[in-house]
């Protein structure tokens, strides 16, 4: 186990080998709030009286500090991001719609399935092209109340179906670490925006792993919350019993802050509950007393790249060093049957949730005239992309007479088994740990033509999702120069524990979330 070596301010250490990378991030944090970013702001902005804000590096916490101390105004802050968007979004295509609201708080990007009143909301689909909501989602309303101006709406796989944003009807987003590669999905636009310095933080949504996986691929922190802790009212629905909105951020503390703003029971969403305890912004830097389980099946699954496995193993060893009690555990059938279970339940619910897109009340309507049936059939065939159509057909089949018991009915039982296996594991452990994604970011086009291959991206994120459990992905290192994500899974309502463990590991690992190629 290699010791952590603190370095100076001169920049990140370049990795010697493919799987070797420690950054200077930890050193900055140890100095507290007089951070590198602030120094740059003050020192280099002075001649013109303008603040030069390094949006690549600035965390939301730091931005809040700047605003609080009036070192930077809300307008300047938003303008800095707008400038960055001008500079880099042509390449990254993180945004579908730039708003650039100016306000007092730290600006925020919303995944484009988050309904925002008066601002186009497309869910990455042509069938909602031009749709402008007349109401706010609860999540957007909470952010508004917290004073967070909207930077814009980010790109995504259509209706949240995908793991790369290649299913967006508006073109894919690109990974800021390597623009020839995908940023992950379906919240790829949000991840690309934060990693690319085009937003200090962002909201995404996660159904099968759509926050955790893009966070992993882009070197960011992503939280998929406990099902029911964040309102789905106004979130364009994909799979109702799985969808959750969550934060994508540069640091765990930022993530906790944003989660606090959006979480809580909503009378407009009957499936929400209040948090049993307030959100705690983490500060502890050890893992003493925390029992960490390493499920065999999640860590040794077929398809996990060697480089990914190595980084995760290092992180696990680090956890032990930080005081965690690490032990092996098992989820006997959850991984083996998780994908099949998910790709029955989610499409079934999706086929139902997408039935409202019929060209009658909003959105795209086919120009090809015909009777009512033709209106439906052509609007939907023309308006939906390939993946939604695929899933609608699978889902409809799974729910149809004669097939319900064998497919949807059976999948809901597998779900119970998965929940039981996780509960059993949590009898001996407080957290479970694994890679988030089997691979690092893959090349655009590599999996796009093969749906089943694309589905495998979710192999490790799906099981805990099926059980409604929260998961936090934090970057733990680089493999082939690309970020590797570490997944922490906890029992229901264990976000504080996830934040605590994630923060301690983050500090110890010292990963620099600014993509190497963009570091100045």
């Amino acid at each position: 186990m290699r010791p952590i070596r603190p370095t100076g301010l001169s920049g990140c250490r370049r990795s010697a080998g493919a799987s070797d990378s420690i950054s200077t991030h930890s050193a900055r944090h140890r100095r507290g709030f007089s951070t590198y970013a602030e120094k740059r702001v003050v020192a280099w902005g002075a001649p013109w009286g303008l603040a030069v804000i390094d949006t690549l590096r600035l965390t939301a916490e730091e931005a809040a500090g700047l605003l609080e101390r009036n070192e930077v105004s809300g307008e300047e802050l938003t303008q800095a991001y707008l400038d960055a968007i001008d500079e880099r979004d042509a390449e990254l295509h993180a945004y579908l719609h730039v708003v650039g609201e100016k306000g007092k708080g730290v600006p925020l990007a919303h995944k484009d399935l988050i309904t925002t009143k008066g601002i186009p909301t497309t869910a990455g689909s042509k069938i909602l092209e031009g749709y402008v909501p007349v109401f706010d989602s609860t999540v957007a309303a909470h952010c508004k109340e917290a004073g967070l101006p909207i930077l814009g709406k980010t790109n995504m796989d259509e209706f949240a179906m995908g793991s790369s944003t290649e299913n967006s009807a508006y073109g894919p987003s690109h990974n800021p670490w390597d623009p020839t590669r995908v940023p992950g999905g379906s919240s790829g636009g949000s991840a690309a925006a934060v990693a690319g310095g085009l937003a200090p933080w962002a909201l995404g949504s996660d159904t099968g792993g759509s926050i955790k996986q893009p966070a992993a691929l882009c070197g960011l922190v992503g939280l998929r919350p406990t099902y029911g802790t964040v309102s789905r009212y106004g979130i364009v629905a994909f799979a109702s019993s799985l969808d959750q909105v969550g934060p994508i951020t540069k640091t765990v503390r930022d993530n906790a802050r944003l989660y606090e703003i959006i979480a809580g029971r909503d009378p407009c969403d009957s499936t929400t509950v209040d948090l049993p305890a307030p959100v705690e912004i983490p500060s502890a830097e050890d893992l003493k007393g925390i029992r960490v389980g390493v499920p065999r099946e999640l860590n040794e699954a077929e398809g996990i790249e060697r480089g990914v496995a190595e980084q995760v193993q290092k992180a696990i060893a680090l956890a032990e060093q930080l005081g965690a009690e690490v032990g092996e555990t098992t989820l006997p059938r959850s991984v083996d049957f998780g994908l099949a279970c998910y790709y029955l339940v989610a499409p079934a619910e999706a086929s139902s949730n997408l039935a409202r897109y019929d060209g009658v009340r909003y959105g795209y309507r086919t120009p090809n005239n015909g009777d009512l049936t033709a209106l439906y059939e052509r609007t939907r065939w023309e308006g939906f992309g390939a993946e939604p159509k695929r899933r609608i057909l699978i889902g409809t089949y799974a729910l149809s007479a004669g097939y319900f018991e064998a497919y949807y009915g059976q999948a809901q039982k597998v779900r119970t088994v998965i929940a039981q296996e996780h509960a059993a594991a949590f009898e001996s452990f407080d957290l479970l740990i694994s890679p988030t994604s089997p691979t690092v970011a893959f090349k655009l086009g590599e999996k796009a033509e093969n749906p089943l291959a694309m589905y495998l991206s979710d192999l490790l994120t799906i099981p805990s999702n099926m059980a409604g459990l929260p998961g936090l992905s934090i970057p733990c290192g680089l493999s082939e120069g690309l970020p590797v994500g570490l997944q922490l899974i906890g029992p229901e309502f264990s976000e504080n524990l996830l934040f605590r463990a994630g923060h301690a590991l983050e500090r110890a690992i010292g990963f620099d979330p600014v993509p190497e190629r963009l570091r100045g």
Partner: protein
Amino acid sequence: MAELEPVIGLEIHVQLKTRTKMFCRCENIWGDDGNTRTCPICLAHPGTLPVPNKKAIEWTVKLGVALGCEIAPRALFHRKHYWYPDLPKGYQISQYDVPLCSAGRFVLPTEEGDRAIGIVRAHLEEDAAKTVHVGGVGGRIAGAEHSLVDFNRGGTPLVEIVTEPDVRSPEEARRFLQLLRQTVVELGISDAEMEKGSLRCDANVSLREPGAEFRTKTELKNMNSFKFVADGIAAELARQRAVYESGGEITQDTLHYDPATGRVAPLRSKEYADDYRYFPEPDLVPVEPPQEMIEAARRELGELPGARIRLLEAEIGFELASGLVTSGRDDLYARVPGDRRVVANVLMNQFAASGVDPANVNAEELGKLIEAREAIPRAAFADALAASGNGEFSADRYLAEAAISDASELDPVIERVLEANEAQVASFKAGKEGVLGYLVGQVMRETGGKANPKVVNERLREKLRA
């Protein structure tokens, strides 16, 4: 061929008169301008979610208790999928295999005794919106150019009641429906008016040899009055008999009753049978009706109309008892003094024709009026009834118009008329009885039409005989 008996099951939809819709808080009132009582939820905008109306659940439990049902310890909402512009989500939130109420029993009193009609279930769901077809004939679908959808009504709470196939005649179906309607109205949960669509009824109809296996049934729709329900069922039974008699088979069709022609005809048959693809509604959590809710429903039940028919029957016979109770007039009946049968008759006939709300009537005054009914000209009596619902209604005003029946008042007039018409008197005494009519007429004229013609007739005869 052995005698076939009708096998009839009914499916009734009752619109609840809650203040808000079933899954959103838009006001539950229509007749307003189209699309002015909608919101993103009942328009099925992306991302919207349903939140159930607590009152609708309470009232469904109340109805279930009144129907003798078991209230489910744990009920689920399900999604029922089909495609129509008035169904904005592409599915209706309804209930499937775990409804709120099941296994009930509705007792329908008849002259021959009580008929127990089994209630399979009563469940809660949301109503569809309203589609108007433009360009066709009479607003019907056939030949329409396009349709206009108004979502004001979309999302209204609806209770669907399904009976066992226990009904045995069109008349029984009608009586059942009327009594059910009265029950629902007395529970205060719906106005249940068939003409306005807040009570709807479809029938499942078949025939069989008594005690033998059930045969194929047809579904009969579009009957929007009690009479049409009975007529429609009768027409379908006749059609099925004819088919069987000619050696044919009944196919499972959905049929439309057309009151204009009295015929039943198939709705355009669909290429694909409906596969509703039911699954539990993931946006809603299960309903476990609290014990307190069920007990409150039981406590507040009061005496149901069916039971009251039997109580009244002893006084006035079944027909009148049943009529009074199912028309909501038995409470007034109990309050109006006077001969029981007479009062019952007037309430069921002349009073019914007046359209006055029984709740508004001063029973004492009405009693007085009814007692004097024979003395009052028919027109005046009708006017009086029409006014009986007004606040200051008093019978006296109308009694003053009562035909003069008092002999002491009439005698002087009769004397005068006899004196003035000696020739007719002589004619009568000579055997020409017809002349009496003329003399009665004269007395009527003298009294300005106010004399009681019967009394005048008798009195004249007496005097003429003398």
